[in-house]
């Protein structure tokens, strides 16, 4: 705004550099997608447009590997975990924000302190727990450590604190019980925060690697990242197949981003600042 005339040439230079940098940032995707539509004999030409675009790699990928199954596994685990996180994190966040009772502060500090514990420290006991209860190689085994999160609880608490008590009391006067006040009155008011939390949680689960790698050894139950990592033996030199697999894992998240860009960016900025 200030002195726009004075800085105009600098502006154009900066803009051009930013655009070039941005194009460099997305080049890996462009190469990946281009390769996924190429036949093997064309893969050594680093052209971005295939001469003869083909969907053959996608067909072969789904036929020859468990990719479709892995995709489904990731989708299922991501959806269930996200549903659980949304429900419990907002329930706990709401309780800590809106109820006054003895032990409230202790519970809050305890949950907050779980953010300090690195996952790497917990995976060994989780593994032995999963082994004891027969959860190895099950969906439940992948999902159970992530059913609630300290981060989400903290985030939701911040947002519920902004919900006016009068609205909740109005709900109580209408004869709603405390659960209904939360579910029917408070929850709709924090919808933007819920959608941000849903996106983070789903993406976090979609890309999660360490724990699924540990808990799953059955190829049929692999999540997408674990399946992709196992490609090293199978498709080592067939780079067009590897790029097709990488595309299938990546395209959904990019589509979600393009559709929900505003919420995601705002959500991250919001979460970053609140934290």
């Amino acid at each position, binding site marked *: 705004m200030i002195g726009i005339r004075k800085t105009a040439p600098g502006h154009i230079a900066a803009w051009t550099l930013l655009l070039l940098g941005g194009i460099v940032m997305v080049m890996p995707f462009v190469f990946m997608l281009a390769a996924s539509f190429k036949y093997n004999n064309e893969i050594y030409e680093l052209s971005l447009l295939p001469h003869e675009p083909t969907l053959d790699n996608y067909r072969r990928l789904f036929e020859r590997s468990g990719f479709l199954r892995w995709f489904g596994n990731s989708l299922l685990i991501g959806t269930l975990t996200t549903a659980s996180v949304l429900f419990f994190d907002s329930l706990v966040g709401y309780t800590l924000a809106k109820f006054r*009772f003895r032990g409230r502060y202790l519970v809050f500090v305890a949950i907050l302190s779980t953010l300090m514990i690195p996952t790497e420290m917990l995976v060994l006991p989780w593994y032995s727990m999963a082994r004891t209860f027969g959860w190895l190689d099950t969906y439940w085994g992948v999902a159970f450590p992530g059913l609630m999160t300290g981060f989400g609880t903290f985030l939701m608490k911040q947002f519920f604190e902004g919900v006016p008590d009068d609205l909740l009391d109005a709900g109580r006067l209408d004869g709603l019980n405390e659960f209904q006040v939360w579910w029917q009155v408070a929850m709709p008011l924090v919808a933007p925060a819920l959608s941000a939390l849903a996106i983070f949680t789903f993406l976090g689960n979609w890309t999660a690697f360490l724990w699924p790698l540990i808990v799953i050894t059955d190829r049929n139950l692999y999540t997408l990242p674990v399946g992709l990592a196992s490609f090293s033996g199978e498709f080592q030199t067939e780079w067009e197949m590897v790029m097709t697999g990488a595309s299938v894992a990546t395209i959904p998240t990019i589509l979600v981003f393009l559709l929900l860009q505003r919420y995601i960016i705002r959500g991250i900025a919001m979460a970053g600042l609140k934290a």
Partner: protein
Amino acid sequence: MIGRSQDLTIAQKRAIWAWAFLSMPVVFYVTIRFYPAAQAFGASFTNWNIVGRMEFIGLANYSRLLQDPAFWKVIGNTFAYLGLGVPISMLASFVIAYFLDRVRFGHGLLRALYFIPHLTTAVAMAWVWRWFYQPAPVGAFNVWLVGLGFPQVAFLRSTTHALPAVLAPAIWAGIGFQIVIFLAGLKAIPRTYYEAATIDGAGAWRVLFEITLPLLRPTIVFLVVTSSIAYLRIFDYVYAMTNGQGGPLDSTKPLVLKIFETAFAHFEMGYAATQTVVLFAILLVISRMQIRLLRSR
């Protein structure tokens, strides 16, 4: 029954609801977070190996760790990831955010270009970068180097180049997040500060060092801490780009990969637990230190 529930005050009824809401979460946090954390800590003093009997062996794991050259190797690598990753990513993301903040035309599109890598699956992108790093005629980087008349670089096959080659995609994927946080921080600085500085005749550099950077301190603290933690815990890219080996010759192996190997390839759970305790301690010390350093200046 009815009589008794009417005797309860509103506050008491509320407290009962609160604990009812918290009942399952409390069980969850105790059994899936606190108990395992305590268990890992306790296991670091044992010879736990999943199958056999677990015996208390005092500090034996810790003294073994101190004498284990492989441990010092991974500590060195882990701090190399941290020491290169944090400054490079912070500087790059700040410069980009600083200019992006001034751009109105196409702001959303530009931001999206920089942010998209952050949303991807590390394992998928690791494959793309591995492909780029292949020798010519397969890998794009070497094809370009040869085209420009340079010799080929061994990248992932070299003990000296492999670590930066693994770090590059991690930085590439991470800066989108840092840019978005920087942009939010920059937007929070009141315009009047800049206007006042301009009226005082302050140049762009003085404004940057005397207004922008000091006011961004909370943002910088947050990002330095979160990115340090991320680089100290690096795993996905290393595993996926080196077939789970951390090679060549352990030159890319970070602490978390050694923990993974010790626990799930050698099944020395007690020894692995000791390493997780060390990781925990490092994370704690680094984040405390940085918060203190950056706050009290």
